[in-house]
């Protein structure tokens, strides 16, 4: 506790007669163009895949085509086929999951990211430990910028939330981009028409 008091005392000194005010944030005009196209373009540019779907059936067909019955597929989206998870499972038991399907709250056009919170993850480890990840984003939930994203999040109190933009990746070896660093090797976003 001694250090706490010491640090706070040092910080409590008056540094300036004119402390800087907190600036008001302004919203900027959005870039022209359809946010769905923009999202698709940006996400593909960072290694993600997008699949446009007009109904749930198309999403299920796509997954059935890409994966075999031997694959361990966990779906946290009611309309998408896959196994459910037992509540309070040990997260280490997800080590052999091939695909996890989740539904984020919204996506962001300017950077290809999607916002997903712990209540929609099943287990917080799933979006990271699975070999592949698929997200279902309804096209009316694509926002333009991160500022708009935080307006949307507002003061929601989620224990854990993350923006995910594409598969996990690294360019640490001579700046060569490699998809699949520690997390999923691929990310597919189903753009479901609203």
């Amino acid at each position, binding site marked *: 506790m001694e250090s706490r008091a010491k640090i706070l005392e*040092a910080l409590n000194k008056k540094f300036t007669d004119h402390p800087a005010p907190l600036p008001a944030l302004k919203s900027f005009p959005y870039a022209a163009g359809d946010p769905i196209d923009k999202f698709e373009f940006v996400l593909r540019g960072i290694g993600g895949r997008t699949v446009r779907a007009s109904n749930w059936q198309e999403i299920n067909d796509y997954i059935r085509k890409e994966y075999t019955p031997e694959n361990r597929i966990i779906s946290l989206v009611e309309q998408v086929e896959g196994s459910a998870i037992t509540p309070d499972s040990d997260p280490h038991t997800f080590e052999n999951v091939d695909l996890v399907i989740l539904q984020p709250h919204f996506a962001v056009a300017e950077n290809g*990211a999607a916002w997903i919170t712990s209540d929609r993850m099943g287990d917080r480890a799933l979006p990271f430990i699975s070999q592949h990840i698929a997200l279902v984003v309804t096209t009316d939930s694509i926002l333009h910028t991160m500022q708009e994203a*935080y307006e949307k999040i507002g003061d929601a109190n*989620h*224990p*854990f939330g993350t923006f995910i933009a594409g598969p996990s990746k690294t360019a640490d*070896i001579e700046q060569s981009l490699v998809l699949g660093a520690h997390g999923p090797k691929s990310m597919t976003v189903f753009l479901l028409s609203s």
Partner: protein
Amino acid sequence: MEQKTSDHAILADKFNQDIPRVDWHDKTLWFIREKRDKAAWQIAEWEELRELASQIKNNVLDNLHDYLLEFEKQAQQNGVTIHWAANAEEHNCIVHSIIQQHGVTDIVKSKSMLTEECHLNEYLQKQGITVVDTDLGERIVQLAGEPPSHIVLPCIHWKKEEIGELFHQHLGTPKGNADPQFLTAAAREHLRQRFLTSRVAITGVNFAVAETGEIVVCTNEGNADLGVQLAEVHIACMGIEKIIPQRKHLGIFLRLLARSATGQPITTYSSHFRKPRPGQTMHIVLVDNGRSERLQQESFRNALKCIRCGACMNTCPVYRRSGGHSYQYAIAGPIGSILAPSLDMKNHADLPFASTLCGSCTNVCPVKINIHEQLYDWRQVLVKNGHVSSVKAAGINGMAVVLSRPAIYRIAGAAGRWFMKYIPAIVNNKFNPWYKQREMPAVPKQSFNEWYRQNRKENGKQS
């Protein structure tokens, strides 16, 4: 604090002995700088975002006391344990005692420049704890027994063939295989075992939100998340300046951070840790380590606005051609050169001179730190405090005498031109630092002063 055995200029000289390698290093970093430009130019409001980020950070530095208290209160309400560390030693002890309480000897750690600053790994290793750095670049330099050479790109100075050899020795990959895809896959397998068996995970912190008590950690690899979500204990270490006031401010900083760092629109993961997962304990260590003192240095305090994007390094002509290790501090490049001397002026007195003062660092900084001006200001402070070599001090004093007396200046100029013309060996030798890697300029027939006097006489007075 360990004493340095060499200075930046000597180490930069060593780095420059392999010319093709220096050119490669230079070009690689410039390529990243160009990617940053392309990303920034796509955002019409880029400059306004920089200005807002700068103003928010100014406000943070002026109100850090209140924001830290608010953050502490919120985080505690979220079920997080808050620790305060006055210096690096205390930080290391706190982390060690948490690890000990859980009876663990093997831990994983994602990237944290603060733990580099505090030399946490060395400390824990001495206590018998094995730390595995899980960021690929950090793992590579860790296996090689080196510190990172860049805060965002830790092994930017390594060639893939060398990494292939390193992995062959440590991970048993086939000799001669230097394919980045293959090597990354090998590291993935190797590190996954560590993730699955480690019960304690340490992460850094990119932003800590006072309003909510949440911390935000940004990675591309997913290593911070995988480590934390598979562990029983999450320890997050942060400098006290990482606070931002409100959650909505993340909308500004996350637009700037990755674009400035690597030219990406955002990192793959921007994770908001607010409450520990059920059954998990979460600790946040707030570290001062000289920061509160630095806040009181009017000219240098705003270096604490830094969000550790590394843009100033990628653009710096000196960093690109001298390499991160020549700075001998956890944070290299222009920003490191103004942060390090506030921590230990004497030991890092060489760094503010490792710059051309071109100002490119200031131009790219997403939070508008006046880096090049501070480098210049540091030089004044260092000379006044006697932290430059006597040769440099004598040279500067000599120049002051010559430049402040026109008659001496004229004579010295004329003498210099005469010697360069008739006895060039007097200046074209290894004792003249300007002659290193440079031809001396051709000697002009007359000085500007002489030319002006002559023309004024010939052409008459201008009205």
